[in-house]
């Protein structure tokens, strides 16, 4: 599903964010990416959906070698990847429904199809009754559920989340975890970069620990392993 071979990333300003990563993530896995701040987690994730390109090394996603991907083929790659951010990235002037539908409109889905899929996604994140609300009228946890709904609405093969619970209180964070597990159970591969020790230690999954841009640990049912 996702494979990296000796991947390096040096930013133009000289920062060496990723230094020789080899990794293989199979279809249907649930993986935590942990590590101290500045370790290179976000860089690692951004290279998967081609927001950043590696300085060296090979990345294969869904059988596509990203180094051979032309600029105009990037949209097709991204249509197979759902992305969720710590800051939600919702459009404030659009309703919950419109925010989710937006992801399908820009890939030119038909209206009836959009309606059907958005309602299914809203159902999954339990926000059907708030479809007409604006993002500002929702709690943080609800906003994050909307952004998850937008990420999964076109049935991606993999869901990538960068600290999705970072801005949420613990209780709300657990709710988001339930949702991510449910999405994973339906067959979607889930990658989650996180700082949340309690979650990693309680909901046991594969843990990939990154330190100074290198893989420090990779355990099937791992622990967080740092002082949070």
């Amino acid at each position, binding site marked *: 599903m996702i494979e990296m071979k000796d991947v390096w990333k040096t930013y133009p300003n000289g920062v060496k964010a990723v230094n020789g990563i080899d990794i293989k993530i199979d279809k249907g896995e649930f993986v935590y990416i942990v590590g101290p701040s500045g370790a290179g987690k976000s860089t690692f994730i951004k290279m998967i*959906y081609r927001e950043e390109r590696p300085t060296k090394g090979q990345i294969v996603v869904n059988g596509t070698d990203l180094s051979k991907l032309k600029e105009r083929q990037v949209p097709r790659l991204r249509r197979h990847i759902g992305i969720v951010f710590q800051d939600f990235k919702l459009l404030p002037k659009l309703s919950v429904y419109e925010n989710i539908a937006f992801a399908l*409109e820009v890939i030119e889905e038909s209206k009836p199809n959009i309606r059907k899929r958005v309602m299914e996604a809203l159902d999954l994140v339990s926000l059907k009754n708030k479809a007409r609300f604006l993002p500002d009228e929702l709690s943080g946890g609800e906003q994050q559920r909307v952004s998850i709904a937008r990420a999964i609405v076109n049935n991606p093969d993999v869901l990538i989340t960068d600290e999705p619970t970072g801005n949420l209180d613990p209780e709300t964070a657990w709710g988001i975890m339930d949702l991510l597990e449910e999405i994973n159970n339906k067959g979607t591969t889930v990658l989650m970069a996180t700082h949340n020790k309690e979650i990693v230690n309680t909901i046991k999954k594969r843990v990939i620990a990154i330190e100074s841009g290198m893989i420090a640990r990779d355990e099937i049912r791992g622990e967080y392993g740092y002082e949070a």
Partner: protein
Amino acid sequence: MKLRTFGRHWKEGIKNLARNGWMSFASVSAVTVTLLLVGVFVALLLNLNEVGSQIEDDVEVRVFIDLTAKEQQQEALKQKIQGVPKVSSVTFQSKEEGLKQLIKSLGDEGKAFSSLEKENPLNDVFIVKTANPQDTIEVAKEVKNFKSVEKVEYAKDTVERLFKVMNVSRNVGLGLIIGLLFTAMFLIANTIKITIVARKREIEIMKLVGATNWFIRWPFLIEGVLIGVLGAVIPISLLVFGYDYIYTEITTRYPTLFIDLLPVYPFVLQLAGLLVLIGMIIGVWGSFTSMRKFLRV
């Protein structure tokens, strides 16, 4: 592109235009001023060219043949003139023909000269034309020194001044037009940049969920085209009516004017088409330059 998507792009483009009203207005005004000046310049230049080429056709060198020259010497002279590079034709005009023409061109007053038919004071003349009218000066200078030539005559000042005026105005006009076009384009680019900055987040999200660059570009291109086309409306109306008015005035007031302006139709229609095209091009160009860096997500 699907029809539905095309409709969406137009809606978005118009929304963008309306959203930053004052900037849009400023850009449309800039295009209006530019196209108005471009239109006036183009109309002037093309008419100048037209008049110029009419006059150019009349440009000739008159070679006065020495009165003592025999037929043989005349023939030799003709050969020699024809041998000069850049000469395209040499026509002989006898003094009798010359006098006839003179009398005719003077109309009623010319009749007074009829008595001269016996004592014709004119010379036989070679009328020399050159392929390129600008070469008459050079040819005249050369032919002047040939044997059996009494003198040469050509509209020296007229020709030289005409070419100078035409070249200068052509260059100044073109320089001004190019400067204006860039100014208008720069203003459009800025307007669209403002729209894009306002929608930066939206564009980022679009790119992350897999929208193609062209899907994102279209509304901004349409915005640019709309600015260009809206900016062309006033200049076109003014030029169509203005040119019609001026043309009618000149042709009715000075019916005997020796020059002909370009007829109103199809000229104004071509001019209108040109202005719309230029408006659209600077609109598209403006939006492209402002968009480039925002699409790199």
